[in-house]
């Protein structure tokens, strides 16, 4: 509530006379489930009413589950509704001039959540956003990224992260990502299973310079950690009727891989993108192991192969491939279909000729920065062609550079073919991002991984068979478990490792975690349920993406919707309604789509057809989606890299 603030008289104000009383980020990670709250308390000390902006960034893939707003004691609370229903309510309110949207937009690997409220002089406003996300293990660590951009000096500034990991915490590291300015301000305390990270700069420490009135706090606060891993069979955590199985074995030799790099060298790659791609490829080629086989395909409107077949990654071949890639000059169109079909042909032929080690892992890595412009242009046909030509034991990984590429499409063909996709941004760091992605898939340790649980005791198990397990990552399986009638839960994981078959058994007392969880006041007692919901919804969304029939798609949509409503999470099929107690003022927050599909590319400021939501809304709560920014300049991301998804014309 805005009524319980302390003394607000000594706030530092910019010219706009808006004071930031406090800016707090509180995050609690319970067994990889992060619950984050961002709260801003502001006051309008000007003699006129003005817009106050709450603009925060939420990691992509996080589920927003609550947003509240308090304007001088009048509270707006949120609820998750089916999208059509939410929009109907929103339209009705809008017709009465009592509604406004919250703008959510995509930006790099974060998503913006922004709202503006017109606040009368002397009034206080408090925003509070809650979201949850599952922290995925990448390159042997969990990384929790919190965007901290208060925009101005805050009287009370605090980022507080608590980590509770029943498996035990191996290390906690907080890189100095906010800059040298904040050296030594972060405190880390680490116990066996709990850790606490606190960043609490004073107002003087926040200042860019001793006499500056602007804040130096602007960036990502990053917490990295890993957990102890004693067993190869993974960790079974059972609590409140759900189980989570974390599987990340180490001490295994890598499986040999057969890898085909398919690189877009069309004209659009010219310049920095190509330079960075060449740099990354040279580093990637150097890291191939002697047991690996590889080849390179570069394509524009034509498709060329460095070698027509897979060759062993000997130092001489690697050097030759590096010379080849160095000599590439991008030009021409983009024939993705032909390039991918050529790659699958090479893999198929190698397999037919018995040249692939039965224990090896075969994969294609596609690097592209744009849509097809030559040959087959229809994305669904390309998807179908690739799926038909890819054997079950091959996987496809896609790297989409920049925003001119249809990332949804890359994600679809990757998941359709047992792989994954990642967007990299066409900037100075492209090379590092590409290498980073490659490193995630460069060390296959296991293949054909199957998780088994006693059927009579578990239900609603998430995906339980996996094509590959890569070193440094983690497989997570969840399900419901009948803890009432069960004392122990057993799992048996089978997998193929380099030169051996593995069968791993894990047995856990279903009440083992109870004592630990009940003792910790910060631990989220619903973490198993939320992780299960998170995995299930994501899995259903992936299934929906590749569903072959409309009927199946509809059924999956229905299930996703039900899950979203049951678990209070915003998905593409739901929206969050924010209402005041009287329910006569409504805001709507939809989930944004991929920027390529956004409605209004390149528009962040006023749009000519923007509805005038202000009309009729009382001055004390004049909620508007029109982003008239009163925040410092650096808060707005570059217009060209963004598109926004406005509810009015979504």
């Amino acid at each position: 509530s805005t009524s319980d603030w302390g003394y607000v008289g000594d706030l530092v104000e910019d010219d706009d006379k808006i004071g930031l009383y406090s800016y707090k980020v509180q995050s609690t990670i319970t067994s990889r489930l992060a619950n984050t709250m961002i709260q801003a308390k502001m006051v309008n000390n000007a003699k006129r009413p003005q817009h106050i902006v709450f603009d925060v960034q939420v990691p992509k893939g996080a589920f927003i589950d609550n947003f509240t707003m308090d304007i001088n004691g009048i509270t707006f609370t949120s609820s998750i509704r089916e999208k059509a229903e939410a929009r109907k309510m929103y339209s009705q309110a809008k017709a009465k001039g009592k509604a406004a949207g919250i703008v959510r937009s995509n930006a790099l690997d974060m998503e913006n959540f922004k709202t503006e409220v017109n606040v009368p002089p002397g009034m206080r406003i408090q925003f509070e956003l809650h979201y949850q996300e599952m922290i995925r293990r990448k390159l042997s660590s969990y990384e929790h990224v919190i965007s901290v951009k208060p925009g101005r000096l805050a009287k009370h500034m605090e980022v507080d992260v608590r980590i509770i990991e029943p498996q035990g915490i191996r290390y906690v590291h907080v890189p100095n990502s906010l800059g040298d300015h904040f050296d030594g301000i972060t405190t880390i305390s680490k116990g066996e299973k709990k850790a606490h990270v606190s960043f609490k700069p004073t107002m003087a420490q926040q200042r860019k310079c001793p006499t500056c009135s602007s804040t130096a706090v602007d960036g990502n606060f990053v917490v990295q950690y890993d957990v102890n891993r004693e067993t190869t069979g993974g960790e079974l955590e059972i609590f409140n009727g759900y189980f989570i199985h974390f599987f990340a074995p180490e001490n295994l030799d890598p499986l040999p891989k057969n890898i085909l790099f398919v690189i877009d060298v069309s004209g659009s790659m010219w310049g920095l993108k190509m330079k960075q791609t060449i740099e990354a490829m040279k580093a990637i080629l150097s890291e191939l192991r002697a047991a690996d086989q590889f080849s390179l395909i570069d394509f524009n409107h034509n498709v060329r192969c460095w070698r027509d077949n897979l060759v062993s990654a000997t130092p001489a071949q690697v050097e030759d491939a590096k010379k080849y890639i160095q000599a590439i000059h991008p030009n021409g169109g983009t024939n993705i279909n032909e390039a991918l079909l050529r790659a699958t042909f090479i893999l198929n032929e190698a397999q037919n000729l018995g040249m692939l080690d039965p224990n090896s892992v075969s994969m294609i890595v596609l690097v592209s920065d744009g849509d097809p412009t030559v040959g087959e242009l229809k994305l669904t046909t390309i998807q179908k062609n690739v799926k038909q030509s890819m054997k079950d034991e091959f996987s496809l990984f896609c790297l989409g550079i920049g925003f001119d590429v249809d990332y949804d499409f890359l994600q679809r063909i990757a998941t359709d073919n047992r792989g994954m996709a990642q967007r990299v941004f066409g900037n100075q760091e492209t090379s590092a991002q590409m290498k980073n992605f490659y490193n995630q898939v460069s060390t296959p340790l296991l293949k054909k991984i199957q998780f088994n649980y006693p059927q009579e005791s578990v239900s609603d198990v998430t995906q339980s068979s996996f094509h590959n397990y890569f070193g440094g990552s983690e497989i997570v399986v969840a399900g419901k478990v009948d803890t009432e009638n069960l004392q122990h839960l057993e799992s048996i994981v089978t997998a193929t490792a380099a030169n051996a078959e593995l069968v791993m058994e894990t047995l856990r007392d279903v009440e083992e975690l109870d004592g630990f969880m009940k003792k910790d006041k910060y631990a989220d007692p619903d973490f198993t349920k939320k992780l299960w919901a998170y995995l299930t919804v994501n899995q259903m969304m992936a299934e929906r993406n590749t569903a072959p029939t409309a009927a199946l798609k509809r059924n999956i949509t229905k299930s996703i919707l039900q899950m979203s409503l049951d678990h209070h999470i915003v998905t593409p099929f739901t929206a969050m309604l924010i209402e005041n107690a009287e329910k006569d003022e409504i805001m709507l927050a939809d989930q944004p789509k991929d920027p390529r599909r956004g409605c209004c590319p390149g528009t962040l400021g006023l749009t000519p057809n923007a509805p005038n939501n202000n009309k009729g809304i009382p001055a004390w709560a004049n909620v508007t989606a029109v982003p008239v920014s009163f925040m410092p300049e650096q808060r707005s991301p570059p217009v060209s890299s963004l598109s926004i998804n406005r509810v009015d014309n979504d």
Partner: protein
Amino acid sequence: PHFIIHLPKSQKNICFNINSEPGKILNLVSDPGTGVVVNGQLIGAKKTQNKKLNTYFGKIGFYFKNKGLKVEITTETITLKDGSSSITLTWSDTGHIIRKQLLISVKKESNVTISVGEEMSFMVLLHRVWKNHPVNVDFLGIYIPPENQLSPAAHGLIGQFASEPEVFIYQQRPGQAPEKPQATMEVKGNKLTVTGGLQKDYRTDRVHGTEVQCWFVHNSGKGFIDGHYKDYLVPHLYSFLKKP
């Protein structure tokens, strides 16, 4: 380490101790016929007691030459090596590794069984001690069933008993203590004085063990084993025993 040799035909158990230096590797089985080697590397207690440093098996190596497979078991991990590749499980795992009809079964914090088809099996037991114990350390025990189909060429501290020697024990008489009678044992052409006593088999009760009545051969099994115990020291964990 202490050895208990069960002789099925004569239904007798013969025991002996071998105390060498930490780091030394003792050959337990060396069978050029089947290509199987089992060696044990010694570790020492944390400190001496009564001016004596006890040694235990801290690492056991199995080499199945015909399959090209090696298994290394320490008090921390269990590793299968096949050429340059390897797979490691820890004693916190329960699981199986299957490779070329070799099955390694790990029972969490308890034992590892290595089976080669129907022909052979070995069991390694983990003995964990309190980690802050001033003297004792974790160690391993190994159990080799007499039914294992080793070839007549098998040798080693245990392997040599795959072909059971004739053993006569007679003239049982009171010893220094009533529970430790003495007797005369004739074996391999040697006449030895042996002491009756108890040793422990930990297969069924890993904590307290089950007492086994046996005849103890003094001086590191001298006279019962072929040659001297030092003849069984090998340079590497996977070395075959060289014939003298």
